[in-house]
């Protein structure tokens, strides 16, 4: 199965560390050099689905006290979410190889 773009990006944004909602938006923007600017509603619909499917969970842990905003809810990947992200990355990398093989990408 293929993953929706939004969800894959969320998985990527959470791969390094747990983040709260707005931080996810910022991270996605940073990861894509600002190409993908999600709005909160779109993000949270994806998050809602991923929560239900067990790809992410609300984190009980908190980051360092000085960086914490106590209201915030932080999300982190579950092992399932991590596996899905890995599988999708694998799939994409295979596609990239194929594209290279057909000289669709310049850099070897």
């Amino acid at each position, binding site marked *: 199965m293929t993953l929706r773009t939004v969800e894959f990006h969320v998985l990527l944004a959470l791969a390094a560390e747990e983040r709260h909602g*707005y931080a996810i938006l910022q991270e996605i923007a940073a990861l894509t050099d600002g190409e993908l600017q999600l*709005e909160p*509603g779109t993000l*949270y*619909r994806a998050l809602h689905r991923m*929560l239900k499917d067990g790809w992410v969970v609300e984190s009980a842990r908190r980051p360092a006290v000085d960086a914490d905003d106590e209201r*915030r*809810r932080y999300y982190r990947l579950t092992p399932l979410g991590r596996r899905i992200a890995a599988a999708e990355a694998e799939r994409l990398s295979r596609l990239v190889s194929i594209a290279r093989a057909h000289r669709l990408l310049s850099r070897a």
Partner: protein
Amino acid sequence: MPDFSRVDRRFAWWLVWLYPPRFRRDVGLGLADAIEDRMRVSRASGSGTLGAAMPLMFDTLRNAPAEWIRSVGDRPPRDPHAAAGGRTMFDTVMQDVRYAVRLWRRRPGFALVAILTLALGIGANTAMFTIVNAVLLRPLPYAHAERIVSVWGRASTFPRGLISYREYQEIRKQTDMFESAGLWLPQSVNLTGVDEPQRLTGTFVTGSFFEVLGLRAGRGRLFGDEDSAPGTVKPVAVITEGLWKRRFSGADSAVGSTMILNGVPLTIIGVLAPPTDAGATAGDGYFLNTDVLIPAAQFPVPHGLEAAGPVMLGVARLKAGVGIARANADLDVIEKRLIASGETANATSNSSFTATAGRSLYAEPAQESVVGTSRAALMLLFAAVGVVLLIACVNVSQLLLARAVDRDREIALRAALGASRATVARQLVVEAALLAMVASAAGLALGRLAIAGLTWLRPPSSVPIPTTLPLDGTVLLFTSGVAILVATLCGLAPAVRAARPDLARVLQAGFRRGSGTGRRTRDALMVVEMAMSVTLVALSALLIQTLLAVQNAPLGFDSSNVFTLQFRLPQNKYPKPDDIARFFKTAIDRVRAVPGVESAALVRAVPFSGNGGTVGYTVEGRPVADPASMPQATFHLVTPDYFKTMRIPVLKGRDFSDRDDLQSTLVAVINETFAKRAFPNEDAIGKRFTTPQTQGPITIVGVVGDAKHYTATEPPRPQLYAAHYQVPLIFSSLVARTKGPAMSVANDVRKAIWSVDKDQPMWSVISLEDTVARTQGEPRFLALLLGIFASVALLLAGVGIYGVTSYGVAQRTREIGIRLALGASAERVLREVVGRGIRLTLVGAAVGLIAALAMARLATTLLFGVTPTDPVSLAGAVTVLCVVSVVACYVPARRAGRFDPVIALAEE
């Protein structure tokens, strides 16, 4: 920088609140935080509040509805028998709703067909109700319109007649039932002193007319009773907003300026404010379909308004709390006193057509005067769309039923596991209700489209369609009511059935399908559907026959290639009969000289133009009858060559000639019916008679063929033609037979008349053929609309019987398979399946015929040239239905005949 944090927080929650509850519970806090963060960052980067908020609002608008749809469809219904566990009624219903949406998503085709079918029915009903509401139910657009009444003078021959100024005065003096009373009469007026002389629609009114309707001036002022009383000729006028915008482009300077109307300069003293919500009701054109209001004192009658007899329309406003019956009792007494005192309605009149004895005054609600004639047609159409809706409901009911039968095992299992029958029935009802709701929303939209479509079909004036369509409370209420009805009708049969599932039988049947239950219900619904379709088809057949009969009815004249126009001479420019006659003769001569004109004549009232009058007559040497029982003839004034121009045959004697003028003895030409009734077994030529309208006896010089005057459907009446040159009146019309198309001479003919008088306006410039066609608008419109409704009904019925037959065949796959395996021929199977459909159709047709007879009797007034029991229409309807039904049955039946027994049996 001000502190926006609270504003942002509230804004965030406001947006989050638009998402479904479960979503809010799970991630609402996080979403609110993120929205707030986004606001803060946008502000920090220099956006204003609005600039920051807009993308977030769009985001919510895109995502919240999507989330709702997902939340409704996706969640699995909890087990119904867990319902007892403290859940609210709302939860239970929501669960049913979710279940229904899930089913629809699984079978979008079913949902689409069901919703479209219902939306069609609901849309048609909404449109028709909107019209009925605007025309028949909504009050006229005046304050306390329910108290406004028309006051009529009733004569033995004509129930809705004009009243006289004297009667009006007595009404004001003698009864206190009315708050106010007024006189009014619309009449064409000539506008001169402008580039091209024009005809305006004027209305001559007493000052009290404004008071009765509760009208006020939008600019300037209105005139009062003292300005309109006979003898006090005040040169003033009030214009309507329409004319003000059209002629004065809404300029302030209009008030105070002067218009030359009927040759008299009148000062415009005010612009009438349009009544509230004008245009929303069809009735607003009744009193105020006019350009300019002129004091009644200036009404052009030879000896003044007081002497003129009944020449104006009466209108009055009842006092609050006064019933119309009490007012009528007073009116009755007033007229009786007037008759007894000898000061009768037409005592001083020489132009009155009104008989004295037997005359009475009465009031009727003004609404009734406005809509009276359209009621029958509208109610018929309303009933027809009602039937279409019922058929749509039956179809959807069939669909739901078929599906419920499919789910028999599931339902029975659930029932066996403890789900109450009510639970199962409720689910079906909820599904039907949901269908009805969605279909109503679509129906409202369709309804508005339908209204636009109706306007495009050019409805006749007797079926007035309001110009603006309020989607108001009443209409919404009606549509919701219809939706509830639809939900009940659609859900009832399946629910009743589901509520008593035959558990043992269904479970016993094991994995076999085709329990065969529900068949009887479906058959019954099928019969109902057939019956309703036959009714509609038969009715529309009757109306189509009516239309044909109207179009083919002999008119008595030849309407092709005849050009007509109307005009009115200004009384002050042509004060004497001689002046008018001279204008007539010169004008005719000039028109005859126009190239392309074969012959031309003047007639006071062009046939089918709606104008005309009647007159009582007494044949010389016979006893003078009481005026009330005097024989009547329709009265025409024509110049020589009229019969030739119209191609009305002169049967005996002669046409008028130019020598029949003011100096010679009065002559007349009568029609065949007149001759037969007044002079049976005698030669009418040379006989003489008198009328109350003319001085001295009139000699009959010719007999012509009967010609229709108002409608193609009128019975032959005695007709009396007098010589226009001997009775020159200021209103007249020109008819000209042309060599080519009638309208090709229009410009030249008008120029010819302007060469006689450059200030003479002309109107109703139209071919006679079009004039005649206009009067046939109602039968055409009715036949067209009913034809559309009947086609839809037929289509729905066809789809219905197709569905039922297909379903029946599918259910009997196994049985048919066995029979085919045992050697039954495909043909036999086919015959049986089709035969079953035909049997149902015939039962339905029989029921429908009875209904059609009943409905046609109600619609008798709309029929012409065909009886309600017309065998052709009835048999035709049954035949059409049978054909549709055979086709609809044949397709699934052929499929059954082709079953491969092996596959059919293996399928089980």
